[in-house]
Structure formats: C-alpha cells, structure tokens
C-alpha cells in the first residue's frame, strides 16, 4: 500500500496508471483542473480498491499555487511514495509560430510549470529519503522537428531537467523516471492524423509506466518500439533532417 500523488490526474494516461495502482489498495491525492472529472475518477478508483482518495483542483499555470498545493498533498498523504506528473497540452504549432505569446504560453504549460513543481517536489522527497518521481515527457523531446518544435523543445527541457535531477536525487535515495510516450490515443491527440497502428492505448502505456516505477527504471519509451524509431530519427544528419518534412 503506497501513497501516490498525481498531478494532471484527469489525463488519460494518469487515469490508466491510477486504475492499476488502485487495485493494489494505494492511497491517492489527485490534482487537476476539472472537478467534475476528478470526482468521477475518484469514485472509480474507490470502487477498484483504492485505499483512500482525496482530490483538489489545481491549475499548473498558477505558479503561486504550487507551494501550497504540494504542501496540502504532502500533509494528507503523510509520505509520498510515488509522484506522477502527467499534465500537458499539445498546442497549435502554427499558432505558436505566428504569435510569440502563444508559444511562450505553451512553454509555460509544458516546461516552466513542470520545472517549478519538480523543484519543490524534489526537495520534499529528498528530505523523505525515499520515493519515485515519474514525469511524462515525450519522444518529441528527443529532436526538434519542424512540425512540433514548440512542444518538442518544452519536452526536451523536461527530459534534460529530469536527467540532472535523477543524478542529484540518486544520492538521496529518491528515484526519477522519465517516460517518453510516442503517440497515445487520448483527447490530447484527437486531431493528430496518424495511422491507427501508431496510436497506442493509454492502458498499454500505463502498464509500461507502472512496471518501470516498480523496477526503478531511469528512462522508458512506450510502447517499446519508439526507442528504436527515435534512435533512427536522432541519428539522421542535420543536413538531411532539415530537408525532410517530419
């Protein structure tokens, strides 16, 4: 029985992870913006066997609220055995290109706010001396692509941040897991036009995340084949890469 903190609890992947952990009788503190959906998820987890579920509305964009939100969560849970950061937006690349404000807003959501939360959370967990922080980054962070580099660069920042954090926290007994999903079939990717076979189910990704958390893996690609796809993409010479439409 563990104490789990989930930020972005209404996201499809987070919900799928929570359902798996609920079956173990874990206790949950859930943070998300939409209280109606949070309530439905909390009730669902309870029926599935969760020890106890508490929820609170939270908007990652509101930087002032981060300290208090995490404080409340920590108090309610007692200790935080696992924390999952699972919120994000895909954004509109074209809009971000046209308008710097919009681009910055995307960076705020996907990188800056995450860094703020991770900084605070890292300190809480470091003083605990144990625990796992799992962060959902993306394969998009492995290389900037013309079609989604605003999202991609935010995720690249998160990936590098987590790498450093992993090394720092290792000495404190805290583990950091970087999750890099490919394209997952969720409301976020609703408009993304990609062959069905490339869209993974949230449940599959959740299974990989839970396994990686249990085994204290460092970085995972989910589904597994994205690791190999990205090796290919990352190693294409820039002179070639800049010419192709990806």
């Amino acid at each position, binding site marked *: 029985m563990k104490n789990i903190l989930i930020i972005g609890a209404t996201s499809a992947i987070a919900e799928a992870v929570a359902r798996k952990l609920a*079956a173990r009788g874990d206790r949950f503190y859930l943070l998300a913006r*939409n209280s*109606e*959906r949070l309530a*439905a*998820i909390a*009730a*669902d987890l309870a*029926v*599935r*066997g969760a020890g106890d579920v508490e929820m609170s509305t939270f908007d990652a964009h509101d930087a002032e609220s981060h300290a208090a939100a995490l404080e409340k969560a920590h108090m309610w849970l007692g200790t935080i055995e696992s924390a999952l950061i699972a919120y994000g937006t895909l954004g509109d690349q074209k809009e971000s290109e046209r308008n710097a404000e919009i681009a910055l807003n995307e960076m705020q959501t996907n990188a800056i706010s995450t860094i703020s939360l991770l900084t605070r959370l890292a300190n809480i967990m470091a003083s605990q001396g144990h625990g796992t922080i799992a962060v959902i980054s993306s394969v998009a962070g492995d290389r900037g692509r013309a079609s989604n580099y605003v999202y991609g660069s935010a995720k690249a920042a998160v990936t590098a941040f987590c790498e450093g954090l992993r090394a720092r926290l290792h000495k404190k007994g805290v583990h950091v897991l970087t999750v890099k999903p490919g394209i997952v079939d969720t*409301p976020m990717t609703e408009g993304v036009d990609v062959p069905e076979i490339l869209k993974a189910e949230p449940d599959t990704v959740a299974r990989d995340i839970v396994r990686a958390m249990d085994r204290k893996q460092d970085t995972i690609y989910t589904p597994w084949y994205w690791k190999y796809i990205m090796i290919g993409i990352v190693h294409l010479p820039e002179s070639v890469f800049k010419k192709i439409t990806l």
Partner: protein
Amino acid sequence: MKMHGWGKYPVIDAEVSAPSTLAQLRGILQAGEDRDLTPRGLGRSYGDSSLGEHMISTRRLNHLISFDSDSGVLHCEAGVSLSDILEVFVPLGWFLPVTPGTRFVTAGGAVASDVHGKNHHLEGCFCEHVVFLDVMPDADLLVRCSADDHAALFHATCGGMGLTGMIVSVAIRLKKIRSAFIDEVICKARNLEESLNLFSVHAPDTYSVAWVDCLAKGSSLGRSLLMTGEHARNGPLERSMQGMLGMPVDMPSLFLNPLSVRVFNTLYYHCIRGNSLGRRVHYSRFFYPLDRLADWNRIYGKSGFIQYQFMVPESAGHEAMAAIMKTIVASGKGSFLAVLKAFGEGNGNLLSFPRRGFTLALDFRIEHALFPLLERLDAMVLDYGGRLYLTKDARMSGSTFRQSYPLWEAFQKIREAFGARRRFTSLQSHRLGLDE
C-alpha cells in the same frame, strides 16, 4: 472516419464524438439539434445497429460509480466494458448475472441489445438483472428508469438498440461466486434431435450451449457438441492472464471455402472421445473462447461477413429448426461457427429477442448468392413464428421486422413520448422503417 460493425458490413463514413463527461454529452446533444445521433459502445453488434452519420461513443464514459457489497449492485457509466467489470470483480467473488459470447461489450451495449447468454433458460437476459438505468433522450432530460419507475421507458430502452436516447449509466446486480472456474461437461449429440433433447435433459444445469456442425448432412444433420457448466464450488478467484493472439491481417476469403470449413468441423467434432467429458476450466475459456483470438473477425477477409441469428418458438416444435437447418446445409454456405441454444421464458422488454424455443447463430462469408438465401430463411423463420436478433442483423427488411416484433408500435410510441424518435436513430432503424 470509416466505421463499421463487427461483421465489417456495411462500412460508412461517420463523424464520431467521444464525450468525457455528462456536461460534454449534453453539449453534443444541444449542438446537434437537427441531427440524427447514434450511440456507440464497443461496436460488437454485427451489422448497422450502432452506425449512423453522427455517432456518440461512450468510450470515455467508462467510470465505475459505486458498488454495494451486500446487495452486489454495481453502478457504472455506460461505457464500462463487461471485461473491465470481470477484471475488478471476479477476484472479489462476483460474476456477471448474464454474459454474451464476448466480454468486449459495454454495459450500455449489453442493455441496448438486452443480451442473452448460456444461462438464458434459467436466468433470462441481462436487463432482468438491471436495477435501474440513467437515460438521456434529450439534452435537458436525464431519466432514471427501472421496472418500477418510468417503467415504459425502461422496457423500451432494454433491448431498444440505443433508439430511446443515450444510456448514461447502468446499475446491475452481480452474482456471488466462490471460484473463477467452471465445471464443464461436454457431450456429443449425433444429430439434431439428440442435440435438442439434450437441452431438456440438461435444463437444470446453469449454463448450456451447443456447437453445431453445420455441414453434416443426412442422418448426421445437426450433430453437435453440447457444453454445460456450473460455477465451481471452490477454487481460486484469479482473473486469467490470457495472452491475446492477434489476427494482424485480413485473411483471403478463399480460405473459407466449403472444403476447408468441412475439415475444420470434422476435426473439432472428433476431438472428444466417448460420449461425454468433464473438466474444470477458467471462466474465460468457458465463456469467451473467441475473445482469445483478438479481432477474430479478420479471419473472414476484407469483404466482411454476415452473422445470422434467429429463434423459433417452442410451439413450432423440433421440425422448425430441422427444416431451417436442412436449407442452410443444402446451400453449402456453412460456417464453422454455428451455435445452438435453448431459450427459456421471454421478458417484457419490447424488442427483446429471446422467447421460449431454440436459437441458432451462424456466419456466412459475403458473396452474392448469399442474400437470396437469407431472404428464404427469413420467410421460413416468419412462417414458424420466429424472429431474428437485431444485434446480429445487417439486412432484414422492415416488413420481416414488423411481423416478428409485434410490440414495435408500442416501442415507437414511447420513443415519441420522450422526444427520442427523431433524435436517436441508426442505419438499422432507417432500414427497418422506424424513422419514418
């Protein structure tokens, strides 16, 4: 996007929305004032029952709401699958009161089809174990209905193929079990008469179904393997860790010619030696042998297939089933998935399929000589006072439907009363003349 039912026939282009909350669902109903809407669960109906130009999928309305461990009543959103329910509740000692041949249907879908299972002769249909439903016939109308409250809407929605409104949540009474295993007995029946009689002999058994060799002719016509089962009184409550064998590509339809099907059937039939065989199997093997082959519908190739399921009433006697089976066998278009079952008493749901008698379900690969054969079969079924199962139907005529489901007019009145008649439709309801 391209959408179709389990038989991959027909295939249409449709707009599909998948609301995550009731508020979003309401928004869709409000925005689509003039549009026909079609509810969609997991798409396991075979034909066009869940097809329409504007479909509303319940896949994100998939939360469990509450469970009462004293009464066994589970309240859940309509998009929760029966598979999900089993995953959570079998380890806790609870089972579905009625389950169809696949667990990949939603609770809403199970209600809309008023599904039946191997225990119909004793325990009836799914909706007979539903305590209440929440239905949304219109954006501003959310009705909790049951056998005691808004009973008319309840009896229309149960088996109502989604045509009375969006089923939003379902409360089902689960049944207590002591083990995840089933004590199964398999008996050989040498012909149809023996098959049908065996159902009477085994009437006290909770679960019974027969797999029929639809290619056997003459004195072997209707030979079958009857499988009966009871929940084991003791044993572990594990859920199965069944791997799924996927069918990644569509099989060429030539593979399913009479010769290869014949070989399959003979092999399947002769694998049981002696007259009966008893063993203990996990519930997933007893109830869902086809689910093991994920996407088994691909075996029929790109042209898709038609599943034909009909029932003939007890009053028509064994001759009814014999005559229809002879016609099917004589055509040589047999499938290797023919299932025979004895039905118990029907219920009061207006469009519910089962009535006391026998039902046969089989597949046909689509080829052009098929449709005239099915028309002939329809005529025979009607003659004997029987009917076809709407959930499997892809081509029945409006006239056949109206003759065999006499309560259709009462159904329409209720649909009209709740304002659902011109809002919730499907390709099937158009075809059957329910949207005029």
